[in-house]
């Protein structure tokens, strides 16, 4: 078998594929952050908590009401999105126009609050969620065993990412959104309800996080603290991609998944740090990120 730096080619191929799958996750999460920052200029530190709420509500809906995975895929993001709209309406609106640091602190507080309350109710060991039957098992690719569910995650995550990018960059609604956040008074003059638009945009970004949470429920431990670990990584991805760049978030997400996967193969202990290393290097040469507009 041919080897690359002491790693068999087949193993490397498997790792690359896993990297892309994880990258799709990062892309989905950082996309929501980028939407919220790009359009609303809110640094949403509650994003990890919203991802957690997506996963937790999937499990809770199933346990309490028998809601299955497919229904949860729609219902959980809608519920969490509604929570997002409430947070925007009652809290974030009050600090609109203030320095970014206020939104950061406020959303961080909200995240801690949610995490604390749910920890008291559900503990930290994790809630159990079974893989839907249709995804049991996987296929043998020769170089690795690929669970069907991972394949599904990559397909659906990329579809949602592309759909979101398309809606914001290429449709009329997207144009309103961008214009509304650019010059809200002008848009209001045109008879567009800008505050509503902002609430809905925040809710939509939150929905993307919750959707990633639903996708995560069958494969990761569902716990009230699951969002806090991933949040910082996702922030790094957004910074590397360029704060607010929608396409940048998606591409960087996948790229970082792959880089992390390769690190896990060649030098595992560095795998949690490699994304931050990339961030440092990128910021040194391109302070506004890979795909960000020069300020």
């Amino acid at each position, binding site marked *: 078998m041919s080897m690359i730096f002491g790693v068999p080619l087949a193993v490397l191929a498997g790792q690359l594929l896993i990297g892309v799958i994880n990258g799709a996750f990062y892309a989905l999460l950082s996309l929501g952050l980028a939407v919220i920052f790009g359009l609303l200029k809110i640094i949403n530190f509650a994003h990890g908590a919203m991802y957690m709420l997506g996963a937790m509500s999937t499990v809770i809906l199933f346990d309490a009401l028998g809601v299955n995975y497919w229904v949860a895929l729609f219902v959980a993001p809608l519920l969490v999105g509604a929570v997002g709209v409430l947070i925007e309406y009652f809290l974030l609106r009050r600090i609109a126009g203030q320095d970014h640091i206020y939104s950061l602190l406020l959303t961080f507080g909200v995240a801690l609050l949610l995490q604390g309350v749910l920890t008291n109710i559900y503990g930290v060991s994790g809630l159990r969620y079974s893989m839907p039957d249709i995804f049991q098992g996987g296929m043998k690719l020769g170089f690795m065993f690929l669970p069907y569910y991972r394949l599904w995650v990559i397909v659906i995550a990329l579809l949602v990412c592309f759909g979101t990018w398309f809606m914001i960059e290429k449709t009329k609604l997207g144009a309103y959104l961008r214009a509304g956040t650019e010059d809200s008074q002008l848009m209001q003059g045109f008879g567009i309800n800008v505050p509503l638009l902002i609430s809905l945009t925040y809710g939509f970004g939150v929905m993307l996080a919750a959707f990633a949470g639903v996708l995560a429920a069958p494969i990761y431990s569902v716990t009230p*603290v699951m969002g806090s670990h991933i949040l910082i990584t996702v922030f790094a991805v957004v910074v590397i991609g360029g704060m607010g760049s929608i396409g940048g978030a998606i591409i960087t997400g996948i790229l970082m998944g792959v880089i992390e996967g390769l690190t896990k193969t060649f030098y595992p202990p560095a795998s949690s740090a490699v994304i931050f290393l990339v961030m440092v290097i990128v910021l040194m040469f391109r302070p506004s990120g890979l795909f960000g507009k020069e300020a």
Partner: protein
Amino acid sequence: MTMMKKLLTSAVATAMMVGGAQAAISDNTVKIGYLADMSGTYRDLAGPNGMKALEMAVADFGGKVSGATIEVVSADDRNSADVASSTVRRWVENDKVDLVAGLVASSVSIAVSDILEENDKLGIISGSAASSITNEHCTPNHIHYVYDTYPLANGTASAVVKEGGKTWYILTADYAFGHALEADVTRVVEANGGEVIGTLRHPFPTPDFSSFILQAQASGADVVALANAGADTTNAINTASEFGVTQSGQTLAALLLFLTDVHALGVDAAQGIQLTTGWYWDMNDETRAWSDRFEKETGVRPTMVHAGIYSSTMQYLKAVEATGSDDAQTVRQKMMDTPINDMFAKNGKIRVDGRMVHDMYLAEVKTPAESKGEWDLYKILRTIPADEAYRPLSESKCPLVTSK
């Protein structure tokens, strides 16, 4: 008159002295501080429910010992040695706490036992894993009660090697606890004729294990061992199940796994995993009866840590009762002199290094077909006798042992 006064005074003084000797329990209160992770990673295996177990012991004593009131206070150490140190310092220096119980993260336990030694108070550690707590970090002021890394490696690793798992691949959490466990396991595997063909140090914590599990699969080792704990272990097991590790013929060995972890995973994902435990709720009528009481209080079945907290608190209170004293050394000596026979341990013994040695158990997680309920999770495969399970005193580096 003067004579009379003298007589009276001396009578009163004598009476006071006699009274003082009878009530050798300082300020007529036995105060227990319960310190544990109440909100973080180790919350469920010890945490608030450990406090309930402790309160059960106090209630079983009627809230009084040797005529003195038993008082319980608690605090969240947030898994921080700093937070724990300042709390315990305040407890022993200002709040007259006699015993510190709970104690989960090994770093916390080691920091706290130093402060207890300085102030000559007593600590009983129920949740920590590091075997160094009664080895190089031993003090005359603490007792390590439930389990440690020595039997974890001894029990699981030697059993799995003897069953034919000759080649091992170890996934290790990249910090002190993981390294120690990896070293212990390697020693045991090699001593039993097996071989460690690869180790992989993963960052702590790691939410996604897919890449590491793939590497473990590609290694072709008979056994994939997990030298990590908590969420890392459950995530790794989940991923191993998703990627069909056991279906493809490899054995999964989790070196530290609590009942709450297995409950969270469910038998589907965890079935067939072998583990070492200090206690299991469904071993006999006595353990079941106590666990029923515990479940009434908390809504969940107890882990070995919860049971250990109850048992050790009882052992402590009995020693206070017997000696009529809350002096740390008097009580510790009495605890050492009294074998432990309760729902937690049979013929358990506290050694001079503070290690409570008792039988440990090799267990296997049941299959979905075998499991009759949400907490019906383990089959006990083998009892590991106390002498075999723990580090023998002849190998001890504890000054209390070596200076003798």
